[in-house]
């Protein structure tokens, strides 16, 4: 049975003055879009990928989002969020934002094709996979090194793969990879794991998954097809070892997608600093979801951020329009 996904860019008018432009179509952006559309704000969501959902689309199963007692596919949840927001009139355009001008009263959001103007901007650009930063890593992206198990897992039937990381992503995606690979070896540089206890139990009980702690990955050697391997060492004893694997999946945290905004709004370790209304250091600019400086980055927290930001944006727009007409 086939699945058919329909995602289409809205036809947009760059001459329009939008009440709100949302940058990023993950759970935070889509929820803000849903709420803003219900507040009847003239809203445009810009998403660089044709498929909305952000990192949710590269997550196989979501089982900690309330309301779904059976695990739900990340890709389905993302699609449903998009459909729901669009049903209230949210316009989603597939355009990549290349520059922003956030400081003036009327903000500018510039894409590869258009320059849009808006009274407010909500930044929901999320975060990207952090790289290991070791020799060979970037050379082998797409040829053995991957940051997306749902994308690239199927390339490893009957193969051995290593997973770098010790958090929820590393553990959850290892369970997915174990459906294809004969063996999954989790390599964690520390000795304790950040993954939730329930996921840990499942991973430790899985017959195909081996977990190793205190491992430093030093380099990736995938050139010789008959001898693809990693050079690893024990971070306590410094003992070096060659580990033969066919692929390496990296889940070692994330980095915020904020390069576009640095210098215009306050950042903390790259993440956007907001007040309790989710507003940034610049008036008329909000942030929601993973891109915000905060403690917990989950679908459940992102949708809360998005809803809350949309509420305060709607309040701001009321005052903004009132000030312009009086």
């Amino acid at each position, binding site marked *: 049975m086939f699945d058919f996904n329909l995602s289409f860019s809205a036809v947009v008018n760059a001459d329009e003055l939008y009440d709100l432009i949302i940058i990023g179509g993950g759970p935070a952006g889509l929820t803000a879009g849903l709420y803003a559309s219900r507040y009847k704000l003239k809203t445009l969501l810009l998403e660089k990928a044709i498929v909305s959902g952000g990192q949710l*689309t590269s997550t196989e199963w979501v089982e900690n989002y309330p309301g779904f007692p059976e695990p739900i596919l990340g890709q389905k949840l993302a699609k449903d969020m998009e459909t729901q927001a669009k049903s209230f009139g949210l316009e989603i355009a597939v355009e990549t934002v290349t520059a922003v001008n956030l400081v003036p009263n009327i903000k500018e959001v510039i894409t590869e094709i258009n320059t849009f103007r808006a009274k407010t901007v909500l930044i929901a650009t999320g975060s990207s996979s952090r790289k290991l930063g070791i020799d060979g890593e970037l050379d082998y992206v797409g*040829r053995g090194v991957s940051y997306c198990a749902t*994308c690239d897992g199927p390339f490893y039937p009957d193969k051995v793969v290593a997973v770098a990381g010790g958090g929820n992503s590393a553990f959850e995606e290892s369970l997915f990879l174990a459906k294809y690979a004969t063996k999954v070896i989790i390599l964690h540089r520390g000795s304790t794991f950040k993954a939730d206890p329930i996921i840990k139990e499942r991973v430790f009980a899985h017959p195909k998954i081996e977990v190793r702690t205190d491992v430093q990955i030093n380099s990736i050697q995938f050139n010789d097809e008959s001898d693809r391997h990693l050079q690893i060492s024990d971070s306590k004893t410094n003992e070096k070892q060659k580990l033969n694997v066919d692929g390496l999946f990296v889940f070692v945290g994330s980095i915020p997608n904020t390069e576009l905004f640095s210098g215009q709004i306050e950042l903390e370790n790259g993440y956007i600093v907001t007040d309790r209304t989710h507003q940034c250091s610049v008036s008329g600019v909000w942030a929601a979801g993973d891109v915000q400086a905060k403690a917990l980055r989950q679908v459940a927290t992102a949708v809360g951020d998005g809803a809350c930001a949309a509420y305060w944006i709607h309040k701001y727009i009321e005052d903004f329009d009132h000030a312009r007409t009086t």
Partner: protein
Amino acid sequence: MPILDEKTKTEVKKILSPMQDVVTLKLFTQPFECGYCKDTHLLLDELAELNPKLKIEVNQFDTDIDEVSKHRIDKIPAIAIVGSKDYGIRFYGIPAGYEFSSLLNAILMVSTGIVKLAEETKAWLSKLDKPVHLQVFVTPTCPYCPPAVILAHALAYYSDKVSADMVEISEFPHLANKYSVQGVPRTVINESFYQEGAAPEAMLVAKIKESL
């Protein structure tokens, strides 16, 4: 059993409503040794019912040798998206999953003539004088793949020098070996240059320039 459900059909009808010119989906198929030919044929038949400007032409890969060579088809199932001319837009393998959006996108682009490319890219394409063949390797469950396919198809639409294929890699595992594809999307440029991931337009163009 129908391949598209009623809800999807309603949505497709809406999406295809801006169609202007007639678009012909030239399917290349074969009754044997082709895992997804039958389903691809069914999909196109159902699709063609959803807009009168959408036509289907079925070619047999093993016997319609003239059409096969004219469209340079080397594997099946294959779909050539042809409008007032052949722009070199191809789909190899069934365009299901996220690639269904890429298929509709190609149909709309050819039918309406609306192509989303930066002005610099268009200027460069107008002067392009060497052939460029893009093969975008994808899987149907890859959410990052349609942007890479759509970009490649847009370049093919705009320039006669560019041809662009979507290749659903799980149906052609020998090509995964040949081009050492272990991650998608991967765009192969003129057989020898590679672009990983859904690269921004400027990055892909730079890579193509490097290959020439």
